[in-house]
């Protein structure tokens, strides 16, 4: 099978073209391989099925980060390269084109973002460019699909370009020559978006804009989330509860099977928070409590990603991030981690050194609560009052700073510096936005729901076998003395390894005080990664560093939990 590689600089629209070429009905699987994720799909080429790979973005074929290494390794296994070029930045992009052409591989060049060149007063002579590069050139506007058909038709024309070998310093000269021959620029005025883009990255205007933006972002996420929770709860109450009641009656209102499926009846009724049956709490937690916030978060995150806010945010927080041994770019990983820690930790691959990746992944796993945990904390702890919810998140943020500061000091070595391009603000394409959103929500449903069900099942089994009671006795000193929680909270800590949302949910039947809920939520967020995060930490850091990271988690979680307990006890809110 022929293998087609989609290559190009970061942020030129490779993935959009990828999804256009492979179509919607094609299986595109994600490969969180040992190095970096790349996506593969299939398309028809010369009447045969060909594999097409979305290679991570790279500036040159001499790798500077782990993500770029993969791109270069992929190159050796490809038969044909579709080189995606940002038409609005021809010169910088052609540098990679030169590198690719010099590898003597079948190449076709795509000038993407063609529509933007017109607004920007850029005129490129395609015929001339084809002549100079010696390979076919097509123009596209990926999000609308313009030019994709031509790309598919002309794919067979892909050629091995380039005649003579070039040395590295000659390549930039060559690129300069090509650009001066086929590109003409005309003067134009700055648009509002450009002016706003500038304002939001310069310190004087950017910092206030950034603070307002972050405030609004979380306000909106919470607003939409709460709204959807009401809808979800309403649906469960009106549609699912009658089914559950019927089922409960059929099963005789008690017994092992009844308790596993429907759960224990609380005062003769089904309580989605406390019954803990597979079909009651097991479905309610992921679908009615967490899903609303997943929907809300990924809707907003998708917009922020596509608009171009995140790199600007990275610049604004760069100075702060240096205090914890990272640079601004790591903030993007932290942002993603707020949705789910797994993609957040994957995103740390973009960082240059092992030291940075360790610090970033550890801080993320300890102090960045995922949306599943956040949703449950808002739902459960929120019942006691907003100040308790705030206490949880403020604690995590303070720990993030203190821990980061210590890790930075302890690990030796210097932190790397930020260097990144800041894409212009763009108005997102609705279709692309919805597609990404749909994929993320689907992924949550397919990966989280089974794990939640498994968690609820395990809880039931452990309880009925008396294992929870047994462990509760063993760990009683830690749980009761240090954390000030009832013994039964051990069950929540056990399940926290599987899913944090179920773990928080298990605090509900314990009738904790507001202070105790804060301690338990903070410890649950910090003490150990959930199984998905654990696996990705292992893959990314290797066993030795992962164990180191886990040790830091356990120590910091129980110290912070203990300190919080003392504080709450001191002000008379403890258990």
């Amino acid at each position: 099978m022929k293998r087609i590689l989609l290559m190009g600089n970061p942020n030129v629209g490779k993935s959009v073209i990828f999804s256009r070429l492979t179509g919607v009905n094609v299986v595109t699987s994600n490969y969180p391989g040992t190095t970096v994720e790349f996506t593969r799909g299939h398309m028809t080429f010369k009447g045969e099925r060909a594999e097409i790979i979305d290679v991570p973005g790279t500036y040159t074929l001499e790798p500077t980060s782990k993500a770029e290494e993969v791109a270069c390794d992929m190159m050796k296994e490809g038969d044909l390269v579709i080189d995606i070029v940002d038409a609005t930045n021809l010169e910088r992009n052609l540098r990679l084109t030169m590198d690719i052409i010099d590898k003597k591989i079948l190449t076709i060049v795509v000038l993407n973002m063609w529509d933007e060149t017109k607004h920007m007063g850029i005129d490129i002579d395609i015929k001339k460019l084809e002549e100079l590069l010696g390979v076919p050139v097509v123009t596209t506007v990926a999000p609308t699909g313009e030019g994709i058909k031509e790309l598919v038709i002309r794919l067979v024309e892909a050629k091995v370009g380039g005649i003579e070998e070039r040395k590295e310093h000659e390549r930039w000269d060559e690129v300069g020559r090509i650009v001066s021959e086929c590109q003409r620029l005309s003067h134009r005025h700055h648009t509002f978006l450009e002016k706003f883009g500038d304002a939001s990255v310069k310190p004087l205007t950017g910092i206030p804009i950034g603070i307002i933006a972050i405030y609004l972002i979380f306000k909106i996420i919470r607003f939409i989330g709460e709204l959807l929770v009401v809808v979800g709860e309403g649906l469960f109450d009106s549609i699912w509860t009658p089914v559950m009641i019927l089922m409960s009656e059929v099963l005789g209102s008690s017994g092992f099977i009844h308790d596993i499926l429907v759960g224990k009846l609380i005062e003769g009724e089904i309580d989605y928070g406390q019954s803990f049956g597979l079909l009651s709490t097991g479905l309610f937690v992921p679908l009615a409590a967490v899903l609303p916030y997943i929907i809300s978060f990924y809707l907003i995150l998708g917009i922020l990603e596509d608009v171009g806010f995140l790199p600007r945010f990275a610049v604004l927080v760069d100075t702060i991030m240096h205090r914890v041994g990272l640079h601004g770019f790591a903030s993007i990983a932290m942002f993603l981690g707020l949705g789910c820690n797994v993609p957040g930790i994957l995103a740390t691959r973009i960082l240059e050194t092992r030291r940075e990746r360790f610090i970033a992944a550890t801080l993320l796993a300890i102090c960045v609560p995922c949306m599943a945990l956040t949703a449950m904390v808002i739902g459960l702890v929120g019942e006691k009052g907003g100040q308790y919810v705030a206490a949880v998140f403020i604690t995590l943020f303070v720990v993030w700073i203190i821990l980061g500061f210590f890790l930075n000091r302890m690990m030796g070595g210097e932190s790397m510096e930020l260097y990144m391009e800041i894409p212009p603000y763009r108005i997102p394409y609705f279709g692309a936005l919805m597609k990404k959103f749909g994929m993320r929500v689907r992924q949550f449903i397919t990966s989280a729901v089974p794990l939640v069900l498994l968690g609820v099942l395990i809880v039931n089994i452990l309880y009925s076998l008396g294992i929870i009671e047994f462990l509760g006795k063993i760990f009683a000193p830690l749980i009761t003395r240090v954390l000030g929680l009832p013994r039964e909270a051990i069950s929540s800590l056990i399940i926290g390894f599987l899913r944090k949302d179920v773990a928080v949910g298990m605090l509900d039947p314990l009738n904790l005080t507001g202070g105790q809920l804060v301690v338990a939520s903070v410890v649950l967020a910090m003490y150990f990664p959930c199984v998905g995060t654990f696996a990705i930490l292992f893959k990314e850091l290797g066993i030795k560093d992962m164990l180191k990271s886990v040790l830091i988690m356990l120590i910091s979680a129980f110290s912070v939990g203990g300190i919080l307990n003392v504080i709450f006890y001191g002000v008379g809110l403890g258990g």
Partner: protein
Amino acid sequence: MVDLAQMKNGQQGIVVRFQGGHGFIRHVQALGIIEGKRITKLASHPLKGPILLSVDNLQIAIGFGMAKKIFFNVDGQ
């Protein structure tokens, strides 16, 4: 000749040389900061924070330490 950190916001200049290893030079060149290029310094963040500049149609942010290793001939000097 001044380095990027010494340049004033809004000033334009031509890249003259880099002071640093092969890896560093490749990093900045990959972003389009090449000898002979005209760039505009847009802003600098306080406390030795990142510096913003524009090359062609691109905006780039680079760390303070890196900025000190890129030298320019500033227009009109």
